[in-house]
């Protein structure tokens, strides 16, 4: 009897200990205590003893830009794979409720939406405003992060009237001492990160024809990869590579046209037979229609340093009225894998061939190695506008999983053999001239450009999704250069449930949602995941939230000055503490719901948060002007 009691007690104690072990405590194992008490953040890509969720092994340094460390953030997604994952864990599930505002910065451009994620390197924060695309360097070593230098590129105002979806800028890249980004008026610029002087400016296109540039360049291996916007303006989409030192254009790969323009050659091996053939970028269109067929490259580019390939998607097809362009309309609404050095395509996949609903494919392709059906696969995951989350083998282009990640009713699924969507007959928008009601999602999709994040600790993707539908009527449209090449009359309305947004955790290996947080307003911000097992996102009415990445419980939230349509980032300050930065300035595609009661006003501020205990009550006075007296302000060229 006594022995049994002892045994029971022992078992009970072990169970309790084991139970303790499974509670959400970051950095478990040898360094669990140090993670909580010291300022040194730990990198915990995966820890032994984690619950049995798919996780990803730590990656080599080649997956990060040169000079990257745990505490800086040199490109919008922090790493070339696009994970938006910070290895900092000082702020974690146990203490995030103490997050408080450290300082703010306003870039003065509240006219337009703020979609920029700040960059931090060398104790300097870099911010690019919406049009007129001023760049600011903030000195993080000084209290209040004063402006160190300002760069005024003076882009052409014509660009304002050609940008379909607000005069925004989605990001910059820090590389080799240069800050590199795009101006709205089709110039790519490189600015000396230390002084703010312009190093080079390259004109990429002609803004009067309707082309603009809003995307964040990807810079790797001495090359700058940039693409155009203008899917609604009848442009021909392209991705170009520039030399990072001179800005000289090395090559340009179009998204439409014959193989010679699209840079398709012997290396091209698409997985599916309907994408094999000569000059499909021209022959899947009526004569010459591809010249204004769009396929603009206005989204995110990611890079695999082992394969040495870049991955990106192309926009919707022009015009929206599909009756004017019978055929599969390749290579719009598609993803490309290209060799990073010469741009020759290795494979491609069209998610929405003969696109009738403006479902672009420019969303981020996050490159992860996760187990699928027991076998670790090198995949890319895209949460597409059309409502399907695609897990694609990034070495071959085979679609492994394609399941909806939000409410959609335009297609009943993706055919497993051909990977073509199975369109519901009543959701076709052709023939034009009649209202087609309640197509879900609306053109802005279940997810627009706002980038999702991946946590290698949980193996889950954190996605801000949209629950919005449209009534659509197609029309005949003429191409008139500099005007929209559209052909659609449209209204939007909320989807079932009445919540415009939902922040979800998604398992891309099985195509299932793990948890979701419905929001009354759109969730249009994108996300960040951290080693503190936190996921961060913002809502269009201005709430910035931190949630438990495993359970989805909201642990902290704060209302900011305006709606949030940019992704947050995390950095380690000069004091060694972790800071979280986010922009709040509503605009962009979220303005399509601006008549929603309670919709905020525009804004232009960046908010930086840290643990309250690390914020001094007062700051020592600074001497003179920021950056020293006598120094000329900014780098006006």
């Amino acid at each position, binding site marked *: 009897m006594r022995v049994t009691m002892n045994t029971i007690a022992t078992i009970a104690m072990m169970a309790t200990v084991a139970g303790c072990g499974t509670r959400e405590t970051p950095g478990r194992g040898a360094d669990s205590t140090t993670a909580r008490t010291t300022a040194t953040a730990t990198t915990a890509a995966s820890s032994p003893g984690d619950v049995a969720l798919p996780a990803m092994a730590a990656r080599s340094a080649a997956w990060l830009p040169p000079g990257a460390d745990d505490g800086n953030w040199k490109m919008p997604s922090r790493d070339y794979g696009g994970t938006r994952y910070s290895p900092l864990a000082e702020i974690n599930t146990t203490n995030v409720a103490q997050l408080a505002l450290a300082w703010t910065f306003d870039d003065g451009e509240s006219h337009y939406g703020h979609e920029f994620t700040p960059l931090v390197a060398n104790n300097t924060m870099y911010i690019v405003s919406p049009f007129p695309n001023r760049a600011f360097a903030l000195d993080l070593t000084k209290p209040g992060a004063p402006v160190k230098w300002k760069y005024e590129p003076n882009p052409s*105002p*014509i*660009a*304002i*009237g*050609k*940008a*379909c979806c607000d005069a925004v800028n989605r990001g910059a890249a820090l590389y080799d001492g240069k800050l590199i980004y795009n101006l709205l008026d089709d110039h790519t610029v490189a600015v000396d990160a230390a002084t703010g002087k312009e190093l080079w400016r390259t004109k990429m296109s002609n803004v009067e024809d309707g082309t603009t540039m809003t995307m964040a360049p990807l810079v790797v291996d001495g090359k700058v990869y940039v693409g155009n916007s203008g899917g*609604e303006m009848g442009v021909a989409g392209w991705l170009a590579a520039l030399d990072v030192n001179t800005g000289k254009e090395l090559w340009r790969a179009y998204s439409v046209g014959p193989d010679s323009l699209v840079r398709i050659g012997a290396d091209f091996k698409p997985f599916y037979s309907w994408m094999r053939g000569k000059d499909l970028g021209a022959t899947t269109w009526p004569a010459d229609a591809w010249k204004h067929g769009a396929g603009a490259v206005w989204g995110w580019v990611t890079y695999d340093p082992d394969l040495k390939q870049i991955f990106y998607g192309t926009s919707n097809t022009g015009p929206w009225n599909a009756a004017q362009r019978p055929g599969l309309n390749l290579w719009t609404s598609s993803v490309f894998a290209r060799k990073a050095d010469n741009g020759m395509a290795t494979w491609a996949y069209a998610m929405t061939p003969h696109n009738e609903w403006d479902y672009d494919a420019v969303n981020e392709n996050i490159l992860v190695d996760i187990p699928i059906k027991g076998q670790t696969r090198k995949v890319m995951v895209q949460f597409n506008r059309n409502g399907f989350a695609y897990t694609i083998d990034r070495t071959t282009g085979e679609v492994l999983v394609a399941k909806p990640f939000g409410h959609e009713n335009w297609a009943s699924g993706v055919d497993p053999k051909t990977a073509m969507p199975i369109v519901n007959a009543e959701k076709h928008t052709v023939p034009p001239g009649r*209202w087609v009601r309640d197509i879900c999602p609306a053109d802005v999709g279940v997810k627009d450009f706002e980038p999702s994040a991946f946590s290698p600790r949980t193996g889950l993707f954190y996605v801000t999704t949209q629950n919005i539908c449209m*009534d659509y009527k197609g*029309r005949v*449209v*003429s191409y*008139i250069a*500099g*005007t*929209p*090449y*559209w052909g659609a*009359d*449209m*209204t*939007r*309305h909320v989807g079932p449930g009445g919540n415009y947004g939902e922040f979800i955790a998604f398992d891309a290996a099985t195509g299932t949602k793990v948890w979701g947080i419905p929001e009354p307003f759109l969730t249009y911000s994108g996300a960040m995941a951290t080693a503190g097992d936190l996921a961060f996102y913002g809502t269009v009415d201005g709430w910035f939230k931190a949630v438990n990445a495993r359970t989805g419980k909201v642990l902290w939230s704060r209302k900011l000055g305006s709606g949030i349509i940019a992704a947050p980032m995390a950095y380690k300050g000069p004091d060694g503490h972790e800071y979280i930065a986010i922009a709040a300035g509503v605009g962009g595609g979220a*303005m*399509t*719901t*601006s*008549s*929603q009661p309670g*919709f905020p006003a525009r804004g232009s501020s960046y908010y930086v948060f840290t643990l309250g205990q690390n914020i001094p009550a007062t700051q020592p006075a600074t001497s003179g002007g920021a950056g020293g007296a006598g120094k000329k302000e900014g780098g006006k060229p």
Partner: protein
Amino acid sequence: MTLHEWCSGSRGAMLRRTRLVAACLAGSTLVALAACRQDTQDVRGGAQGDVALPQQQSGVTRSTDTTGLPAEGALARVAIGDLAGIGNNTLDAQVKNPYANDHASIEAGQEIFINMNCAACHGYDLKGGMGPDLTDTYWRYGGSPADIYKSIFEGRPQGMPAWGRALPSDVIWKVVSYIQSQGGSYPGHLADRGRQGDLGDNNRDTTSFSTLKGRNNVH
């Protein structure tokens, strides 16, 4: 008179009656034809010849206006601002739209507004989007019909294309008629007050970019 009676009687009488009927028929046919041509004619405005605004020309600009403005070029007649408070730069605002309030012109203007892709930037309900709202009282470059005509003709710095070479002047006037019919512009005699912000909000829905169903575009 029956056929029997027509046929009876003298030959001469019968011939006279037949000629009379033929003449009546011919006459009424001519009248009908003339009337047909009349009511399908395109409405042509009266004051077109003396509109003192940029006409579609190439090379030398010739002034055919009678408002006493300088002969050298349309640019001199731009009058958005005021010079040191010395007022009455409302000359352009006095120029009337020859097609205002004409229903056929408004309908034609709406069709052009859609076909030339104006609706794609300014909204099918003119509430704005890529381009500004055309139904409110805020006009950056002036909102009198003549000011709107010039904005369309010349284009504007933030991406408004210049249509003066693509569209003849009466086509542009019809588009202006359509915009006027949607309530945005202010008439010439209110141009001063419009420029000085005195016209206030006309209580319209000002959430220009929203496309939520039921807001302004019930269908």
